[in-house]
């Protein structure tokens, strides 16, 4: 019989990160970089303030960017909300051009033309997308609300976030590293992830040739010796699973050697209701993550 996995589907997912960053992508990137070097030389958008360019840019955005950044650039679960003027990798015209054209190495942001969505953009089209982003940009407060110092105390203390999450190399390993989350996600997104961690499971291992990333799914197995292990999947295929348990022990298991294998989309992270973590404290934690993530 085919290997049966017990998908628990009551919760929604992050599903795919359209991540086809391959070395092919890098070759294309190098070529594009060379080809567009002249066009990059300008540091201001030639279409600045042109509403027609912004409209054309919206089409380009939908084709090339909305897959991750959502309709209206509001963030799509995979890519951040781009309406904020504060952007981790810069918000000047030339910064945005570079980010779109070259991608951001080490992140899910691929170079232009290698997203698997759309066919890549000309320099002109990239400027039009930037025009579009300017048209939807909203002013963000100079100083986000909340007390980051108190947030840090909570993160490493009473709220026990650091039991499972690292920031800047300090903390646990079971959940995603949160060092960059403040730069990649809007505050309300982070709040929702704390209150409803199972709504979207975070993407984990992403491979160049794979269409979808592994997610932080919960898995419970019973080994042939009868030992039950619960943890998160680092990787899974039809025949095997590589998981980390709550003690941060790694287990590499062949499914046909297991008594049972159960996967769940209920996150291992507890849902922090207001009784566990009040709104003010959560705001402080978010302020801390934003302060680290956007620095």
């Amino acid at each position, binding site marked *: *019989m*085919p*290997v*049966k*996995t017990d*998908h628990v*589907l009551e919760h*929604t*997912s992050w*599903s*795919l990160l359209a991540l*086809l960053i*391959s*070395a*092919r*992508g*890098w*070759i*294309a990137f190098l*070529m594009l970089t060379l*080809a567009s070097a002249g066009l990059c030389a300008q540091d201001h958008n030639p279409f600045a303030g042109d509403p027609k360019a912004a409209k*054309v840019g*919206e*089409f*380009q955005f*939908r*084709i*090339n960017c*909305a*897959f*991750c950044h*959502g*309709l209206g650039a509001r963030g*799509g*679960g995979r890519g951040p909300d781009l309406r904020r003027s504060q952007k981790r990798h810069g918000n000047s015209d030339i910064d945005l051009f570079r980010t779109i054209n070259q991608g951001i190495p080490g992140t899910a942001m691929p170079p232009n*033309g290698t997203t*698997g*969505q*759309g*066919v*890549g953009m*000309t320099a002109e*089209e990239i400027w039009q997308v930037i025009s579009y982003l300017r048209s939807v940009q909203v002013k963000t407060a100079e100083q986000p609300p909340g007390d980051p110092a108190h947030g840090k105390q909570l993160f490493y203390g009473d709220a026990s976030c650091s039991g499972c999450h690292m920031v800047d190399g300090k903390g646990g390993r079971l959940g995603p590293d949160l060092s960059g989350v403040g730069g990649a996600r809007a505050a309300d997104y982070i709040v929702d992830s704390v209150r409803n961690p199972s*709504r*979207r499971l975070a993407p984990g291992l992403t*491979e*160049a*040739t*794979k*269409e*979808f990333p592994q*997610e932080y799914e919960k898995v419970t197995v019973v080994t042939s010796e009868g030992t039950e292990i619960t943890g998160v999947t680092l990787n*899974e*295929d*039809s*025949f095997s699973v590589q998981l980390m348990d709550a003690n941060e022990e790694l287990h590499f298991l062949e499914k046909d050697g297991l008594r049972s294998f159960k996967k769940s*989309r209920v996150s291992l992270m507890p849902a922090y209701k207001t009784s566990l973590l009040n709104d003010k404290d959560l705001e402080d934690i978010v302020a801390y993550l934003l302060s680290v993530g956007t620095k």
Partner: protein
Amino acid sequence: MRITGFAKLGCACLVLLAVGVVAINACAQVTFVRIVNSAKEPQNWLTYSGDYAGHRFSSLDQINTSTVHSLVVKWVYQTGATGKFETTPLVVDGILYGTGPENRVFALDAHTGRPIWLYQRQLPADIRPCCGRVNRGVAILGDKVFFGTLDAHVMALDAKTGNVIWDVNAVDYKNGYSFTPAPLAVKNLIVLGVSGGEYGIRGFIDAYDADTGQRKWRFYTVPGPGEPGHDTWEGDSWKIGGAPAWITGTYDPETNQLFWPTGNPSPSNRGEGRVGDNLYSNTLLALDADTGKLSWHFQFTRHDEHDWDSTQVPVMIDEGARHLIAQANRNGFFYMVDRTSGKLLLANPYGKVTWSDSKDAEGRPVAAKESSPTPEGRRVCPGAAGTTNWMSPTFDSQTGLFYVNAREQCDIFSTAPQPYEAGHAYYGSAYFPADDTEPYWGALRAIDPATGKIKWEFPHPSPSWSGVLSTAGGLVFTGDAEGNFIALDAASGKPLWHFQTGGAVYAAPITFALDRKQYIAIAAGSSLYTFSLP
């Protein structure tokens, strides 16, 4: 060891080998008759789908349900290229011919994987193929191998050296045209369809003289003024109507008919501006092989707004006196069509479908009103990548089952007006997953073609882009996105053997034999693997 499959090795050239050098040259010639009779020489893989019928089935049975557990890697060839490696290699008398990304073509000693020659086309810097710099393989005829390029050329290379024999520019790549599929060699013609449905091209299928490269006919998949079907397009929309033909068709030597499926109308996500059925987009075409004249057509998805190209191999199946075409379509339905008339016999969903809940008088699934993309976006199943895509299915005449990798994936489809600009992406907005999307997954499904019902399935943790091979050894072979290459019991779907290749599979397996040893080959990651018994 069972060698019944080898007892059937009736290649005329094996016999001729005994008479010397002249015979060896004769052997290198792949004639049309040899391809027609490809079942008689299962040691070779002479055409994209293994035979003209599109079965991707082999009578080799040395690797079978009893022996497959001891399958081992025989050799690996690395292309050195990154990007999706989509080739179906051909094997002719001990030489393997394949293609890699960026229009590489290679010939290897099939015993060892050692290269004999490599050809790589220098591509212009400004090509922008929509879905990767891919190629799916070559055709072979006489002493030449043929392939299409990303800058829309058709080329013939010498089979022994890789020297360019002829090079024909079919159309201007700057307007979004390219070639990605393996051509089909029929009689003395090299037939292939164009890619570029994302650019507002006007699709076509071409046939070239194998000796000279002279174009013998072109069938435009969007009819021009005065031609039947032209009135299914609004205004001038036909000029940029899309309908590419980017997969290898099949051929019936009995009737001299080519069966060629076509892709989406342009723009893919916007029906406004191209009111009508938009023939011959998403259509199965029956064309006379000599002239390219249309015999009949069957349109799977009328006035498509979801990018559901019908570019899936149309598989010829005979049920008694009935001559049929089976196709597992990207729109989620499994179709059976009479291949003498184009009449629809069956349309049954083989995956989750929300776009259609009724059928017309002829039995065609009809799009529900609320399936059209909206400015805000609308959730429809299957998603843009479809219930399947271009990955090859297989038909196993022993089990009578049709096997295909299916995707379970829904998307949000949005639409927006978009001006056409030559050579630029022309989608009419886009699709994307929503926050509330269920996790995507996939399954290898065994379908009974008589009923369209699923006999068994083998689930994949994420959708697979792998083709499928069936063999007389009672096996089906497929790959997955997690890098596994898997052999399953064709009757039950039970996995019997698997190997971790280290890279996702975007290609279809083949099998061949050398010195009475059966091999299985599959492209995965950036490597071509071959397996055999120890």
